[in-house]
C-alpha cells in the first residue's frame, strides 16, 4: 500500500505560515507523533517556508510554495518545493549568537534550526524547481 501523502500549496507570503503550521500539526498528530515532535516539525517547516519567501522569492508574495507530507511506517517526510532562487549550500555559515547580537543581525537561524530539529535535511534543484526534503524518524 502506498504511504499516505498530503499536499498544501500556498502563495509566498508570511501571512500563510500559520496555515502551514496547522497543516503540519494536523497530519503529524494523525500520524501519532508526540506533542514535542509535532512542535519540532511545525517549526522546521515554518523555517523552511520562511526561507523560501525571504530568499528564494525575495519577498515576492504571489509565487507558489508546495508542501507535501508523506507518512511512512518508520518516518515522516516533508518536501517543500519552490521555483525561486536556489539555496546556496556552499555559502551557508552556521550562526554565531554573540556575533549576531554585536552586529544586530536578526536572521540566519532557520537552516540551523531545521538541521537541529530534523533527522535529515537536504536540498536539490532539478526540473525547474528547488526542493528541500526533511525526514523525521519514529523513535
Amino acid at each position, binding site marked *: 500500500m502506498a504511504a499516505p501523502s498530503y499536499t498544501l500549496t500556498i502563495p509566498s*507570503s508570511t501571512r500563510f505560515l500559520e496555515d502551514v503550521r496547522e497543516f503540519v500539526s494536523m497530519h503529524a498528530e494523525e500520524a501519532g507523533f508526540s506533542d514535542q515532535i509535532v*512542535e519540532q516539525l511545525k517549526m522546521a517547516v515554518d523555517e523552511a517556508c520562511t526561507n523560501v519567501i525571504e530568499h528564494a522569492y525575495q519577498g515576492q508574495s504571489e509565487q507558489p510554495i508546495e508542501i507535501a507530507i508523506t507518512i511512512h511506517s518508520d518516518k515522516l517526510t516533508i518536501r517543500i518545493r519552490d521555483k525561486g532562487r536556489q539555496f546556496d549550500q556552499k555559502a551557508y555559515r552556521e550562526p554565531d*549568537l554573540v556575533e549576531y547580537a554585536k552586529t544586530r543581525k536578526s*536572521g540566519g537561524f532557520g537552516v540551523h534550526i531545521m538541521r537541529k530539529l530534523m533527522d535529515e535535511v537536504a536540498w536539490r534543484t532539478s526540473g525547474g524547481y528547488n526542493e528541500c526534503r526533511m525526514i523525521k524518524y519514529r523513535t
Partner: protein
Amino acid sequence: MSNFSVGFRSQGSIQILDLHGELDAHTAAELEAAIQKCQKDNRFHILVNGANLMYISSAGLGVFMAYIEEVREGGGDIKIAALQPKVYNVFDLLGFPMLFDILEDEAAAVSKFDVSAN
C-alpha cells in the same frame, strides 16, 4: 488577521510587554514595533512576559537579537519571563540563555533589574 499581540504594562521604571499568540516571520514586526516604542519612550528596562506566547520561530528570536545591544547601550536590558516549556525549548535550542536572562516568572525577572520597581 494577526494571531499575535503585545500588551503594555508598567511596574515602576520597568516596561512589561505581555506577548500573546504566535510569533513568526509575519508577526515579528509587531514585537519590533513594541520594542521601538519602548526605546522612543526612553524605557530601557524591558521585561517580556511570555506566559501567553504559544509559539516562536527564529524570526521572533531575531527581534530580541537585533535589539538587545541597543537596549543595553541605553542602560537597560531585555529580560524574558514565564515562557511555556515548548517555547523555552526554542530559546534554548539557539543558546539564548547564554545572552539573555530568562526567568521562571515575572517577579524573578523584576528582581533581576538593578532598579527600584516601585
